């Protein structure tokens, strides 16, 4: 693909995961930035807090991701000024989808996972493709390690099929501590087998008390 003179994208690697619980949401991403076989930095955050109950994690091309985060943060500020309140997570989910589709024919090379609390205080996770197709789910993984992580989350968190009626809630019954433990373990496993994932893991937990941040070390090789 890069044989063409017009390939303007680059994949900086990395993995993002989000898990929704009954009254919390865990959003996590590794902090490695790479290009080709080299590491650019071991200490780069892929997570952006867009609103008090809404956090976005993106992996892919960092140039586009920085622009996307900046765009959304600005739109959120405008919303605050116009409506005298912060944007809710479902509202931001729709805004992100529209922003991505706006560039349907020159996409943001960004694989997004949006996590937070909805207007009722329940955990919600929205997962996206590069051009804005989105879905509310109980958990999701995006990025270079996503195919290593998703099957494990499917097994442990067992999302109900949308085809089964009546519609069942996708949020996991696990406690906050158990969900964080699962996310740490799943990242440690992905780091073993994906060369683009590693260095450090940044975990953001959102609940009604606010936002908490935690870091754990991952393999640096």
């Amino acid at each position, binding site marked *: 693909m890069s044989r063409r003179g017009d390939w303007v994208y680059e994949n900086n690697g990395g993995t993002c995961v989000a898990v929704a619980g009954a009254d919390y949401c865990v959003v996590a991403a590794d902090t490695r930035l*790479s290009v*080709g*076989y*080299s*590491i650019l930095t071991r200490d780069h955050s892929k997570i952006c807090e867009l609103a008090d109950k809404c956090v976005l994690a993106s992996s892919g091309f960092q140039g586009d991701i920085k622009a996307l985060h900046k765009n959304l943060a600005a739109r959120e500020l405008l919303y605050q000024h116009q409506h005298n309140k912060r944007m809710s997570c479902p509202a931001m989910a729709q805004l992100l989808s529209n922003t991505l589709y706006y560039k349907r024919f020159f996409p943001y090379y960004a694989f997004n996972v949006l996590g937070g609390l909805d207007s009722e205080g329940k955990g919600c996770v929205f997962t996206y493709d590069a051009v804005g197709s989105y879905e509310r789910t109980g958990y999701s993984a995006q990025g*270079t390690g996503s195919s290593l992580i998703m099957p494990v989350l499917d*097994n*442990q968190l*067992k999302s109900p099929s949308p085809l089964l009626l009546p519609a069942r809630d996708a949020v996991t019954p696990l406690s906050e501590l*158990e969900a964080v*433990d*699962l996310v*740490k*373990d799943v*990242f*440690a496993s992905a*780091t*073993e*087998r*994906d*060369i*683009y994932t590693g260095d450090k893991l940044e975990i953001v937990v959102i609940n009604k008390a606010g936002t908490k941040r935690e870091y*754990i*070390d*991952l*393999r*640096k*090789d």
Partner: protein
Amino acid sequence: MAGAMDLPAKGGFSFDLCRRNAMLAEKGLKMPGFRKTGTTIVGLVFQDGVVLGADTRATEGPIVADKNCEKIHFMAPNIYCCGAGTAADTEAVTDMVSSQLQLHRYATGRESRVVTALTLLKSHLFSYQGHVSAALVLGGVDVTGPHLHTVYPHGSTDTLPFATMGSGSLAAMSVFESKYKEGLTREEGIQLVSDAICAGIFNDLGSGSNVDVCVITKGKTEYLRNHQLPNPRTYVSSKGYSFTKGQTEVLSTKITQLKPKVEVTESDAMEE
């Protein structure tokens, strides 16, 4: 073309399927990828002999296929060879030359020389015009002294006091260029090789996991497998995982009795 595939009388590659593969590729079939070692391999000469080093990660694209593979191959009791490039190629070419060296030892009654291994490797690789993707660091000690060579996939070789190959070669070479000097002691040599491999492990994404070292001196070879393990798993869930019956949904079950389909006849064991 006959119905059966004939291997050339002397062994080697059979090109019978090349035409079919070319036709399929034209129709859009994606060929299976090769597993490359995406590696850091090094060697240096110290006062008593040579030290070879390698990482232990084998990759298939962006995925780690083997977290602890062996990249330092046996050639002769006094000669070892590190391999980078396509794993099957490095394995096959070093095994083949190792066998040839053993036959040669029987024929001559002498210890193998490094230049013999070198010539066998380079002529094989040259005749395959670079299609055998093996980049090697060959080192050993024989009657003529310690030797260290690099061999490239197209068949060229270099003779050097210190060498690095693979995707992590630049990271490793930066360490060698800073710290190498002539007349290193055994401990200094091992430390320098370990440092160079670690540079590749931590700075090159194609290399990782552990450090293997091999020290060859006159009359003695020490293969230090996993000399350093600087990458333990960082987190293990204390909760563990259970895979109970019923956790995975069974959509349908079909049981086929085999007994009525198989004829059991009374006959002697091993009878045709």
